């Protein structure tokens, strides 16, 4: 299978959405049909390439791609002992994230074909969406720290512009400005950290840096400057303030992808903690493991309690996104806290990490689904205020079904995927510290409670006169939601294949720092 396309998959993974985005303003002048077709084609190709790449990674192991070298697989120059070029290193963890991004990109693009059809400047919208997709994909597959920074900037800028898309009311622009401001400060901190690492070790490749790292005082500061902004970007309490603002005002399809984008930041956080620093955190491993755990607990609890009194449905869901991010931080943080302890790691650490990583993919899917249903309601009713909504179950039954699937999944009700990942987290965290596990369960109950409220306010009750014109959403939106809902149901009914083939390799890849280094430096 060593065909032309297969050899250059990582490059094409980035080049395809970029190509789609660059030509979109020109294609957009040719009419709306051409524009929609181009957007659909771009999303389809991107998703296909992403899935193929993931498949290749799962079957043949880590994929390396070196930009500009004599051959794609030539990692080192012959007469030097370190990589000099930008390198994509796609291991199982990256593949997992690439799958998430590709799948939701496909669903979201299809959804937005009709959800956003009433607005102006749509070619800009789609170009931005593709840039966001390219940024997220680049973030998760790159093996170069500075390249990571670039893609971080692309995704945050495109995200901020998309958040501010509905400029008619200033609120969206305000949220976009907040997001852009915080992301830029965070990105600058990341850049400073890169500068600190580069000044000491003269390398930008993550594997090379990892092999050279000595954990001096500067490295500690660089760790802080890398970890805190990325934690901010994934929306961990107490730096979560941008999340509700942003998720509320963005168009729903964008919100669904912003969730994926913040998961990509989470990926960056894990990558830096596990791969770049990894064992070096041993003597202060408790500090950073507990950093993640504390952030996770705070996010879970404050997120869900802030969600309960909300009146805006998307704002409520945004707080739940914060809360769910807490589960991932908790799971992976427990893994990090026992990283130095091989026994505990094998006993429950890896399970906790598996739960956290499985929660990432589940969360991206069901949260995306929930945001899309909220967008569907907004599309038909023109409001997001829960006090005004009501009785939609009569007119939008399929939306209600999708909402129920998403809500039950996020609340961790058994036959859905949310329960599977939460179960893994509960059990393993209970062995680490029962207290944390109990908090996680309480949060789960509160989540269910608040979604009961949403469900009651939106769909239950007698049909209301002002929404008499509301009817079922158009087919593209339906298909977009169905893709995500299908994934939720399948992953809920058969979680073990996902765990075995996607999550466990990812956990091993994350823990195996030496393997990551050896893939490039060859055990030197």
């Amino acid at each position, binding site marked *: 299978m060593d065909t032309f396309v297969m050899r250059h998959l990582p490059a094409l993974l980035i080049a395809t959405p970029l190509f789609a985005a660059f030509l979109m303003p020109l294609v957009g002048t040719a009419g709306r049909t051409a524009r929609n077709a181009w957007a659909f084609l771009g999303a389809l190709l991107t998703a296909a390439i992403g899935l193929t790449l993931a498949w290749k990674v799962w079957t043949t192991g880590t994929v390396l791609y070196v930009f500009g070298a004599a051959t794609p697989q030539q990692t080192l120059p012959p007469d030097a002992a370190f990589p000099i070029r930008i390198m994509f290193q796609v291991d199982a963890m990256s593949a997992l994230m690439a799958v998430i991004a590709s799948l939701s990109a496909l669903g979201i693009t299809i959804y937005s074909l009709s959800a956003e059809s009433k607005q102006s400047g749509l070619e800009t919208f789609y170009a931005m969406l593709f840039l966001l997709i390219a940024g997220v994909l680049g973030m998760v597959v790159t093996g170069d720290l500075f390249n990571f920074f670039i893609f971080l900037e692309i995704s945050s800028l495109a995200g901020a512009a998309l958040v501010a898309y509905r400029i008619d009311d200033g609120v969206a622009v305000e949220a976009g400005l907040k997001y852009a401001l915080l992301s830029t400060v965070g990105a600058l901190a990341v850049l400073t950290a890169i500068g600190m690492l580069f000044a000491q070790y003269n390398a930008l490749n993550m594997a090379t840096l990892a092999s050279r790292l000595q954990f001096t005082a500067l490295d500690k500061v660089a760790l802080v400057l890398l970890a805190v902004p990325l934690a*901010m970007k994934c929306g961990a309490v107490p730096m979560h303030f941008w999340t509700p603002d942003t998720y509320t005002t963005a168009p729903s399809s964008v919100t669904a992808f912003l969730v994926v984008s913040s998961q990509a930041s989470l990926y960056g956080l894990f990558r830096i903690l596990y791969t770049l620093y990894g064992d070096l955190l041993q003597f202060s491993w408790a500090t950073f493991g507990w950093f993640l755990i504390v952030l996770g607990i705070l996010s879970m609890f404050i997120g869900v309690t802030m969600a309960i009194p909300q009146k805006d449905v998307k704002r409520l869901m945004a707080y739940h996104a914060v809360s769910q991010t807490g589960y991932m931080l908790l799971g992976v943080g427990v893994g990090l806290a026992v990283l130095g302890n091989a026994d505990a790691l094998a006993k429950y650490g890896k399970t906790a990490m598996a739960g956290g990583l499985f929660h990432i993919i589940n969360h991206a899917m069901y949260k995306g689904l929930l945001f899309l249903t909220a967008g569907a309601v907004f599309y038909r009713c023109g409001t997001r205020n829960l006090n005004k909504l009501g009785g939609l179950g009569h007119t939008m039954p399929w939306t209600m079904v999708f909402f129920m699937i998403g809500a039950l999944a996020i609340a961790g009700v058994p036959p859905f995927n949310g329960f599977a990942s939460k179960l893994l987290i509960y059990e393993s965290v209970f062995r680490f510290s029962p207290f944390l596990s109990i908090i996680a369960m309480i949060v789960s109950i509160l989540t269910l409670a608040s979604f009961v409220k949403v469900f009651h306010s939106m769909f239950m009750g007698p049909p209301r006169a002002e929404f008499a014109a509301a009817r079922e959403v158009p087919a593209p939106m339906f298909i977009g939601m169905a893709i995500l809902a299908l994934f939720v149901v399948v992953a809920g009914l058969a979680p073990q294949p996902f765990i075995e083939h996607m999550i466990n390799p990812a956990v091993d890849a994350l823990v195996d720092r030496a393997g990551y280094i050896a893939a490039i430096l060859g055990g030197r």
Partner: protein
Amino acid sequence: MDPTQTLATGSGYWSPLLWLLALVVGLAVALVIRSRGRKDFREGEGRAPFISGNKEPEQGGGHIPASNIYWGFLESMKSYYGRLVPVHTGVPTDYVAWLLGIMALMLIIGLAT
């Protein structure tokens, strides 16, 4: 793949298919109970909902706004929310300051250990 032992959680197994089976069984039981109900129920009689003995409000008047749901919960947690909600000021400078604050905190912890 053994359907009885699908998801290995480290200490046990969990099978959503069994749960689905249980759900189906429960549903069947419910249907059976439902089918044993009165067959002579007539349309138009007893349709009006029983709301504490009061008359049914006008059409749409039975709508309960979302703010009223969990009113008691919110009221009992008032001291907690009174502290938490004002922190979400909505001012961008405060957002930046929180980020910097966490950074400074971690800097102290990191350099001290």
